[in-house]
């Protein structure tokens, strides 16, 4: 079963980019998930403020309503495409990830197959 998960770090207790030590632990976590066949692809997000945008489609027009260069939250975090045998395993995986990545939230969606 394929999943798509978004990680949103807690802005107050876990802001900004991880320390080199945490980065190492996260790399190791991803490498192990890869070896177990759970990790398909993923990456960290750059901030919307400088490197992203939100586009709203209204009546055939597309309007950029947030970013780049606008005043918006410096939200980092990232995403992953994952494969698990069950929903329970996916939730377990998210918990183990948060153990390493620190305070925040993983929102996990089932991919339509």
């Amino acid at each position, binding site marked *: 079963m394929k999943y798509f998960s978004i990680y949103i770090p807690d802005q107050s207790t876990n802001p900004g980019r991880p320390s080199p030590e945490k980065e190492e632990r996260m*790399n190791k976590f991803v*490498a192990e998930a*890869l*070896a177990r066949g759970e990790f*398909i*692809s993923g990456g960290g997000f750059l901030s919307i403020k400088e490197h992203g945008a939100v586009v709203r489609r209204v009546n*055939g027009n597309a*309007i*950029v309503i947030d970013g780049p260069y606008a005043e918006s939250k410096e939200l980092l975090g990232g995403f992953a495409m994952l494969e698990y045998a069950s929903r329970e395993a996916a939730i377990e995986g998210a918990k183990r990830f948060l153990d390493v990545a620190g305070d925040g939230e993983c929102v996990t969606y089932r991919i339509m197959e």
Partner: protein
Amino acid sequence: MTTDAHRTIAAVWRIESAKLIASLARLVRDVGIAEELAQDALVAAIEQWPRSGVPDNPGAWLMAAAKHRAIDRLRRDELAERKHSELARELDAGHESATEAAAEALGDPIGDDLLRLMFTACHPVLSREARIALTLRLLGGLTTDEIARAFLVPEPTIAQRIVRAKRTLADAEVPFEVPRGAALAERLASVLEAIYLIFNEGYTATAGEDWMRPQLCEEALRLGRILAGLMPAEPEVHGLVALMELQASRANARLGPLGEPILLLDQNRARWDRLLIRRGLAALERARALGGAHGRYTLQAAIAACHARAATADDTDWAEIAALYRELAGIAPSPVVELNRAVAVGMAFGPAAGLALADALVAEPALKSYHLLSTVRADLLEKLGRIDEARAEYERAAALTRNGRERELLLARAARAQTPAR
């Protein structure tokens, strides 16, 4: 336009310019004039879109602007007489030969034009350098400056190269078409070669160099994927895409913190891009399913796939790699292929077997100053316990490499060389 107007127009240009130039080239039968008309349309867009916004169908807008400009030029008699009459006929509202109209009703006319443009830009009447510059310009939509920075040559050099290339095509009256029959294989080979040369130029870029250089890998990948969409039944196209996806998957692991190159076997595989590996393996499957397992790009992709599938260096299927290099040496022999085969044979069948092949290359003039030949021999000699010879080869390799960090590493290996533990 809420974001920077010029950046947005540049983005639209990247999406539309190749198709625009291709469609115009079919009309005017001249790639140089087609590009000039396309550039005129771009100027019009730069003048108008900041105020009016990007039109809903930018491609159609640009085409209309280009045709408008073409009519202007006709009126001012700027075009050569023979082009004049052809173009006038084409621009005549609704006029088209019956067969052309019928052909266009089927299939993918814009795709066909794009394919014609790719083959024309890589025509054998042009030098390799010219094909690359023209491909990046007409199909990649890169500016002269971007191409110049990517290849570390002055901008006027590239500008001249492109001008001369267009003139050569015009003088040779190269028809704007996709080659057919027996000619197709050879012409396709030159298209694939051009794309792979672009990729390699980007792949050899080192950290700290102009951002345009590694960008070449993305350009080549994009062009390869576009070509795969236009020629889905050609196995070697998928083979080339597979090779590039798989090589690109290692891009983040290839350089160390001090900018030194890290050999494949020493790379941190956690840094290999899994998405690109998946895509590369899928493209390789397509190539094989189309019966292309023995093509030169597909073979190279298969070798890259062996590495990609190995979780660690120790898991590598060296016997398979040795067999693939042997097959590659049969159809596309080169000293570098033979050297890689020596490495694979050494890993699969023992250092003596590998050294036998590497020794045969010592006399090869092309490898005379190639430090990797010495590195490979040094490694094999060390494994065989021939320490003094190994040390000499490491030192020789250190003297030949131009990378300071690599030199240090090789000298360190020379110092550490000792009989292997039994």
